[in-house]
């Protein structure tokens, strides 16, 4: 049985958006997402294959691993449509619908070439969500973002090409890190998964997108990379090291970052670390953990980005140093934000708890205690920046005197749905466990587990209270925090520009010299043209040169004959 790949229908539908009036456009987009989601009901198997140049391009292949990602990608796409209900311009809707469509299509790619096509499509569609901010700062961040995303795609293509020429098999499946091709593919995935030092684009670009754009961005690209890693490199021990570093390092940056959406971007990086560790462990429980974490993470991270987007939409800034005391003016947003914060901090009865428990248990089973304790430490870090800092500085702290009200209805409805899902999954984990890649026999709610987690969180919160009461908590300062993007935004230009200047100097003098020779040659030509020894004058230099070349050719042919 053949069927169109899910997601493709959303990309095709996006082409018509400019011609549909507002509000109908939103309903139409929901319709496209539902139609695409309906395509999932066909079930596991290979449903669409296209033979090109001797290769089988598998455009629609579904299995137990792609399913949870496909479901949550559709939910995220729909939430995004609702969240941006008030936006009358078609441009951003077009970008986010086709972006979501490309990410969903990528989940169902069965070979590296079709994966590459969708991989790049997510890059070129999503960049418009950053450009839509329409500021100079956003424009340059968007260009840096695009360079990274496209580079990732090019490296993926290089890996696929080497794979095709060496093995003739481009199937998107499990591989070992033992060849140039697999390393290239690994690095391509690593750029989009924001590995340490390859992560600059994330914290650089996401907070520059529009209030609605960041919500869409936060869902797809990075989780697509997690999915790709889970498909190709499960059980690669290197990933445990990389993932552990990803969970721990952004924690320190998030403490001092002033832009709350950038704090969330650091937090996103830290969450990806948990998923990367789970993929690195690679057991059935761990892969379930990675998929479950990705699923709930998309919901609560979108919820947090939505609440900050609502603040940005209403107040015009998300800088912690300029916010505070909004709990009375935006009570609904505040409640949603706190539900998101408790979910990401993994409080029992919230979605983060039931997902993170899987990863922690799988990691504990491996006996790698150092990694286990790093992740435990990072859990306290999550509480610090996403659990406390975000709601505290936006809605409480001190009164910032902003006169404002609640966000538009669409924004509130989307936040309400996401918050409802966060709690529902937390209370009824079997809803999530039933769609995970492997059959689950896991019970997160036992007294021991719950009390351990509550101790960790409550006493970490006490530490926060102590610091605030003693006035030892660092105040928010208007500033930028240097991240790995500093290397290519400041260090490389500082070293590179004197070098480039020297190269340009040499090149310039070379051009000057050659120009002298060319002018001399032209003078000779002119003289021949204007005062021929015999016959008519020639009408132009080009004709003369052509004549000369033809004569030369004739001469050469004579010699050859």
């Amino acid at each position: 049985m053949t069927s169109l790949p899910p997601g493709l229908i959303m990309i095709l539908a996006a082409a018509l958006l400019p011609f549909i009036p507002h509000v109908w456009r939103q309903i139409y987009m929901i319709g496209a997402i539902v139609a695409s989601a309906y395509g999932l009901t066909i079930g596991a198997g290979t449903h669409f294959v296209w033979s090109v140049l001797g290769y089988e391009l598998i455009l629609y292949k579904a299995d137990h691993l792609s399913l949870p990602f496909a479901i949550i990608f559709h939910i995220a796409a729909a939430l995004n449509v609702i969240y941006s209900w008030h936006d009358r311009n078609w441009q951003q809707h077009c970008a986010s619908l086709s972006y979501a469509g490309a990410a969903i299509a990528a989940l169902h790619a069965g070979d590296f070439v079709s994966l590459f096509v969708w991989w790049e499509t997510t890059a070129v569609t999503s960049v418009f969500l950053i450009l839509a901010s329409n500021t100079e700062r956003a424009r340059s961040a968007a260009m840096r973002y695009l360079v990274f995303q496209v580079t990732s795609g090019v490296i993926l293509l290089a890996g696929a090409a080497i794979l095709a020429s060496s093995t003739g098999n481009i199937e998107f499946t499990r591989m070992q890190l033992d060849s140039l091709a697999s390393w290239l593919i690994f690095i391509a995935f690593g750029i989009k998964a924001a590995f340490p030092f390859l992560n600059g684009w994330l914290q650089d670009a996401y907070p520059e997108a529009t209030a609605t754009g960041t919500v869409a961005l936060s869902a797809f690209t990075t989780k697509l990379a997690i999915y790709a890693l889970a498909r190709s490199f499960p059980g690669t021990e290197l990933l445990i090291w990389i993932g552990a570093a990803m969970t721990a390092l952004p924690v320190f940056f998030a403490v001092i970052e002033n832009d709350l959406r950038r704090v969330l971007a650091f937090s996103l990086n830290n969450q990806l670390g948990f998923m990367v560790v789970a993929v690195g462990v690679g057991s059935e429980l761990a892969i379930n953990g990675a998929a479950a974490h990705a699923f709930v993470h998309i919901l609560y991270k979108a919820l947090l980005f939505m609440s900050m987007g609502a603040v940005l939409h209403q107040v015009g800034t998300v800088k912690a140093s300029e916010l505070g005391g909004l709990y009375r003016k935006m009570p609904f947003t505040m409640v949603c934000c706190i539900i998101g914060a408790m979910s990401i901090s993994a409080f029992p009865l919230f979605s983060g708890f039931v997902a993170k428990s899987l990863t922690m248990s799988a990691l504990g089973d491996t006996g790698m205690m150092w990694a286990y304790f790093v992740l435990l430490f990072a859990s306290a870090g999550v509480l610090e920046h996403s659990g406390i800092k975000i709601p505290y500085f936006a809605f409480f702290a001190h009164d910032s005197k902003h006169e404002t009200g609640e966000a538009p209805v669409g924004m509130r409805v989307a936040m309400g749905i996401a918050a409802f899902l966060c709690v529902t999954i937390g209370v009824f984990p079997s809803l999530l466990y039933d769609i995970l890649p492997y059959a689950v026999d896991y019970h997160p709610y036992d007294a021991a587990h719950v009390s351990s987690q509550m101790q960790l969180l409550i006493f970490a919160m006490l530490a926060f209270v102590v610091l605030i009461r003693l006035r030892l908590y660092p105040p928010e300062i208007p500033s930028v925090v240097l991240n790995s993007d500093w290397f290519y935004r400041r260090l490389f230009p500082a070293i590179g520009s004197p070098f480039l200047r020297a190269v340009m100097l040499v090149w310039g003098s070379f051009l000057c010299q050659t120009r002298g020779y060319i002018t001399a040659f032209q003078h000779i030509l002119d003289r021949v043209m204007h005062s021929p020894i015999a016959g008519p004058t020639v009408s132009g230099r080009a004709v003369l040169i052509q004549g000369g070349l033809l004569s030369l050719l004739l001469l050469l042919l004579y010699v050859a004959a």
Partner: protein
Amino acid sequence: MSDQSKQQTALQRLGAKFTKTLLLISAVLFVGDFFIHRHGYSALEESFMFPAVFGFLAFLFIVQVGKWLRFAIMRKEDYYDD
């Protein structure tokens, strides 16, 4: 009393309530730890009130390192604008 200081007092009262709730929950957790056997992956993890101590210290450590990091990697807001 002006609106301003009213709002400030309301925030303080909210903070005090929050602190009291936290202390109450921590007391319950403290008592609970005498009765619940927490199974961990190492002996250290199973020791009395380990997650609580770990969480408390980790939090202080993160904030302190953050403060030090400010000297190294914090720049003015217009650092990249030129």
